[in-house]
């Protein structure tokens, strides 16, 4: 159970499957940590199922069932993927994007306290990446253009709007400026989903824009 959550509209679009791919990954990661949002999702899916059953049925061909049974007889079921033996460090949606070790990723280090890497760009133009802040490290004040979502994976950080820990889902819009600082006792790893490059309000403007050159 975490303190900061997706907006209900985002959960509705997640349940319906219509949200942008980058956002669906962030919501999925948050759900891993948050039983309250899992319950809300379960209710939204129950609601969807009622609407699904209330649709006007669209007839299928009389032969459809027989051809399905033929296919079942012909095609052996694919072997189920083995269950992971150990507790996974990251939720499944994120693990699917990661190599064996975080060190294999192409990290860029715009400043002493921060390194960033890009995991994917979805077809709606969202960039999914990781931010790794050193314990106690602060990132200079910057403004966001477009929406940015952060989900804390390990450790915690705070800015003038609050403090955040594992699983928290933080939404920032284009008008917010903030200067996040990692908690003192451990490094902070954050999943980030950004719409547009971050624009620093200070002289370090170009530094936080490694994604621009990627």
């Amino acid at each position: 159970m975490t303190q900061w959550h997706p907006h209900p509209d985002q959960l509705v679009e997640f349940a319906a499957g219509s949200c942008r791919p980058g956002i669906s990954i962030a919501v999925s990661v948050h759900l891993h940590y948050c039983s309250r949002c899992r319950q809300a999702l379960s209710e939204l899916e129950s609601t969807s199922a009622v609407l699904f059953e209330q649709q006007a049925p669209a007839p299928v061909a009389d032969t459809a069932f027989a051809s399905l049974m033929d296919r079942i007889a012909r095609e052996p079921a694919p072997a189920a993927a083995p269950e992971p033996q150990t507790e996974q460090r990251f939720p499944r949606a994120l693990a699917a994007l990661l190599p064996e070790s975080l060190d294999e990723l192409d990290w860029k280090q715009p400043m002493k306290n921060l390194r960033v890497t890009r995991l994917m760009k979805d077809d709606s133009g969202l960039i999914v990446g990781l931010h790794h802040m050193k314990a106690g490290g602060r990132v200079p004040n910057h403004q966001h253009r477009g929406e940015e979502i952060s989900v804390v994976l390990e450790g915690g950080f705070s800015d003038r709007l609050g403090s955040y820990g594992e699983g928290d889902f933080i939404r920032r819009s284009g008008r917010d400026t903030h200067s996040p600082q990692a908690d003192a006792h451990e490094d902070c790893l954050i999943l980030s989903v950004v719409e547009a490059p971050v624009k620093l309000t200070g002289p370090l403007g170009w530094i936080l824009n490694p994604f621009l050159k990627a």
Partner: protein
Amino acid sequence: MTETSPAAQQWADHLEAVARRQDIPAFEALFNHFAPLIKAFALSSGLHRNGDHLPDELVQEVMLAIWRKAASYDRHKAAASTWIFTIARNQRIDMLRRLRKHQNDLPADDIWELEANTELFGEVRQSRVQEQVRSQLSELPVDQRQVVAKVFMEDKSHQEVADEMALPLGTVKSRVRLAMKKLKLSLEGLDL
């Protein structure tokens, strides 16, 4: 309502029969009820515009997945119709994304995990939610009902529904929120 409806129980029984003994008559009963709904669900997202055969292909893929995954269905965690809806949703997401030919996408099952909920939300509790939703849906004003049907079934974001209906985004969002309130979902009790 603490009992589940007879129909809901029957679908769960059929899924268990498929899981335990590959019961073909039970599977056929599921097919006869759900295949035309899966096809309607495919049509509502416009799949047929990318190829006439796609809605029928989605029906086959989803029913095949139900046959193969029946052993992982747990009636203590979900109502049968909810479980089937989530499979149909995930397969439709994969099919729509394949059509967009975007290379970066993860399989939907990695993101919308069918097994993610370890809590026993349960057949009874889910059926209660469903009863509530069923009885309240018919009470919704037409404008709310229409928007809810589009947002929940047609693979359209709030923004896309707003564009299609020539309504402000805020209007679409507030209609959905008002409807959720009337359906008495706890989502609306969330302090945001």
